[in-house]
């Protein structure tokens, strides 16, 4: 039944494209997304802890030992829920798209279908197929419907700015997947092409030498999409140029594809790749150390850059880099609590970043047509659109990890894990959190609670009120963050048994630290 999340999305895409009216396309897309979310929720209700739910398993290309194997464990289900929520909210926030509406929702739903597919695949080849399916719609979503800074709108440069961001994102993604493809081809040649299913590969005795070589290929390949420093530069430009719904999906779900790939493929299949090399280069003794430091740099660097941006969307874009750094850091702790925190952070950041982009892109930009913090200040948006201000304050609080919101649980777990595994790194991660508070506060003040206009000619904004779909979307996302933050067992009961399943045996090495 869970497989229908994928099929429904593709059917919905076709239906939305063929819909005779724009409004029908919107409704169809919303119905599809809600149906996907409902399917995930129903599965969640019937979930037995620790279960590995096999959805479909048929031989696909028997000549090459490839199977069409869809299954879900707790980690997959967590991210499926996230996809359902983000997709639904994204459609609510793009209710006002008037330009080529049918095509917009068609591309959007193809992307969603690909994402569902990645999270459900239990065959490496299949996972890669869905992963690539998700790349192409991203390109078109940004290139056709993207937003541009004030001043550039309507000029000939507008198109090229969008296309630049879209092409950059597509090329980064494709370069990353080329690395993964290279590793995949090597795996196929090494195993003799018997089977590509995760169960078979996780128990295949790859030599440590092979794992040392394959692990960084796959990890970097996927981490490009997770926004790992220094391969993150597609993220801020991509997020900023994307239309609201697409940046919600980019930050909310697509970056999770990368992190999920790092965990599911790189770490689960090649756990020995994390072992010490046996020698030191520049103070690094293992890939684990290298990637942990890169994650740390991402946390601090992303936050610091966000602190000095004038473009509202870039602030959120860089904050995504910082928050995704926590995911990667959590993965590199190799502790149960750290990994749990990492998956938790994937979910939490997906919801919160989606909400932040919704406020910035839909509520603010679509009304004021500017993303410049200095221009937004004099408009005194807190008085004009108080709902947006309230939502942004709450989302900002969730983003900086205030207890009660999901971000707190996630980052707290990552920090504990880091403390146990890599003690000195906690200091820098803590600094990253502090800077995070600073840039969130700065953006909040500048955008919503600016100085009242000194001059009469100050830019004025006659904003339409916040519409119903926007309110529904905001409440959906905020409610999710609060619910998970107040009762984290919803997710930890899913994630922990999955981490303790036989699939991760190699990574645990017997027991967790």
């Amino acid at each position, binding site marked *: 039944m869970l497989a229908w999340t994928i099929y429904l999305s593709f059917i919905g895409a076709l239906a939305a494209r063929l819909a005779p009216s724009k409004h029908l396309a919107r409704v169809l897309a919303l119905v599809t997304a809600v149906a996907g979310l409902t399917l995930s929720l129903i599965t969640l209700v019937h979930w037995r802890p620790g279960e590995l739910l096999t959805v479909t398993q048929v031989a*696909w290309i028997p000549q090459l030992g490839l199977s069409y194997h869809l299954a879900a464990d707790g980690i997959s289900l967590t991210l499926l829920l996230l996809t359902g929520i983000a997709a639904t909210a994204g459609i609510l926030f793009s209710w006002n798209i008037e330009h080529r509406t049918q095509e917009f929702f068609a591309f959007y739903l193809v992307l969603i279908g690909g994402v569902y597919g990645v999270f459900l695949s239990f065959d490496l080849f299949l996972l890669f197929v869905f992963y690539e*399916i998700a*790349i192409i719609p991203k390109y078109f979503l940004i290139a056709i419907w993207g937003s541009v800074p004030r001043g550039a709108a309507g000029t000939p440069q507008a198109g090229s700015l969008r296309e630049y961001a879209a092409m950059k994102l597509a090329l980064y993604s494709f370069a990353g997947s080329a690395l993964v493809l290279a590793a*995949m081809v090597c795996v*196929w040649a090494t195993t003799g092409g018997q089977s590509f299913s995760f169960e078979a590969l996780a128990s295949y005795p790859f030599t440590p030498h092979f794992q040392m070589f394959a692990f960084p290929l796959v990890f970097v390949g996927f981490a490009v999409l997770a926004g790992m420093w220094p391969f993150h530069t597609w993220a801020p430009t991509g997020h900023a140029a994307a239309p609201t719904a697409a940046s919600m999906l980019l930050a909310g779900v697509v970056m999770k594809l990368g992190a999920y790939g790092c965990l599911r493929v790189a770490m689960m299949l090649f756990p020995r790749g994390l072992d010490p090399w046996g020698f030191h280069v520049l103070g690094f003794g293992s890939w684990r150390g290298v990637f942990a430091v890169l994650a740390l740099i991402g946390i601090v660097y992303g936050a610091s850059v966000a602190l000095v941006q004038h473009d509202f969307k870039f602030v959120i874009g860089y904050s995504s880099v910082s928050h995704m750094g926590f995911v990667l850091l959590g993965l590199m702790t190799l502790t149960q609590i750290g990994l749990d925190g990492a998956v938790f952070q994937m979910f939490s950041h997906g919801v919160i970043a989606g909400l932040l982009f919704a406020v910035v892109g839909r509520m603010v930009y679509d009304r004021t047509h500017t993303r410049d913090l200095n221009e937004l200040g004099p408009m005194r948006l807190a008085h004009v659109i108080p709902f947006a201000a309230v939502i942004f304050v709450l989302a900002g609080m969730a983003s900086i990890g205030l207890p009660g919101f999901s971000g707190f649980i996630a980052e707290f777990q990552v920090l504990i894990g880091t403390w146990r595994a890599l003690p000195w790194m906690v200091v820098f991660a803590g600094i990253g959190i502090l800077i995070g508070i600073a840039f969130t506060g700065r953006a909040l003040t500048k955008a919503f609670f600016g100085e009242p206009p000194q001059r009469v000619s100050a830019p004025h904004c006659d904003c339409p009120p916040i519409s119903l779909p926007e309110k529904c979307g905001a409440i959906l996302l905020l409610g999710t963050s609060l619910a998970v933050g107040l009762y984290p067992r919803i997710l930890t009961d899913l994630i922990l048994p999955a981490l303790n399943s036989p699939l991760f045996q190699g990574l645990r090495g017997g027991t967790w630290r």
Partner: protein
Amino acid sequence: MNSVSYLDLLLCTLPEIAVALAGLVALTLDITLLRKSPAANRLRSTVIIGLIGCILAIHFLTRAPLQYSLPDGMFVVTPLTRVVQISLLVLAMFTLLLTRSTRFTLHIGEYVALILFATVAMMFLVAAQNLLLIFIALEFLSLSLYILTGFDKRSRQSAEAALKYFLFGGMSAGFLLFGMSLLYGLSGSIELPKIAAALNTPTLDPLLLIAIVMVAVGFGFKIAAAPFHLWAPDAYQGAPTVSAGFIASSSKVASFFILAQVVIIALAGAGGSGAFRAYHPGWVPVLAILAALSMVLGNLAAIAQTSLRRLLAYSAIGHAGYMLLGIIAHTQQSLSALLYYVITYALASLGAFGVLGALESEGIDRIDDLRGLSRRSPSLALCLMIFILSLAGIPPLAGFFGKFYIFSAALSAYPSLGLLWLVLLAIAMSAVSLYYYLRVLKAAWVAPDAAAVSPALRTPLVTRLALWLLAALVVILGCLPGLLLNWIGPG
């Protein structure tokens, strides 16, 4: 001298005879009965005759004995050649269907007949295991293609392209003949398996090396591998669209198949090794160099193109590099990978040219001319997207599985991943290729209309049907590669 049963021979060559007869009938009808009819009628009738010929040929092929061979490897039928011949016929049928949208010539009968004759040549080519017949069939094919290239008599470009193609092709034929004569001189035989038996010595004769290089040069021209690719961009650009599509699809399939036959069967003992740090002279390193050069040069040069057809030509050179991987690995598996790749590539490539052909009446050649296509003709734009993404190797389209299969097969051919250097280069280059393929799609899908008033495009129903069928084939073969692998798979 073994005696030949002429009845058996007739039965086995019935498919070729059917296609050749169809060509002759189309030609005769066109200059006799249909002489006074309007061009559209003549085209319709001749195309239908051609289609009937191809369908009959496919029918005969499915009935013909599975294994048959004439003495001296003159005509060898195996299940594999049958699959290749059927796919050649299918490609020829699509080419004929797409011909409908061209209106560049009044010599319709000749045009259709030439396509059919070229198909006959290719069918003989894949069934030949004899140097003499291979050469004759190859020249028959090339002659037909030269004329098809120069068929647009109103255009100087077309004539120039044909001349260039002819001069390069003639020279390459010379190289090929020289290499073949050396092979004959060394082995005393022109039959591929016998050559292999005679050449089976532990050391490599220097003369044999020269023969290998000559053969590689000769075939390098035919498959447009760098550095022997120079004719391709001009021929693709100057030739009538349908001819270019035909050259890019059918002739690729046949040339690659016969190149694989020649080097793998005749030069079985002289392979050498192209593995990293385990280099050993033979035809493998020669082809490996061609492959590496083609991938790099084809893909990098394609980035700089503004003409769509030149872009497709350079990307074809890049694809030739990937396909050579399948020959270099020369295992059962890599051969089936090569066949899968080249057949699906041919479908996508013919489709891309078909879309161009449908737009031809507007003189479209620059990439920017595609602007607003998704508005003016959503179905054409969707077809173009499917073909281009398949060429770029995006799943779930056929091109992706082809790439994965050929890379994996090449890598597992040598112990300890010996061909890794070449496979990594191929993967890196295919990542590069996405850039220029996306540029084409960007023009068709993203860029706003140059003029918002440009009317909706009207394409003939037959053309649209053919393109949809091609697109459907690309998607289906990508989602279910097993359908084709069952026929060409190892063992």
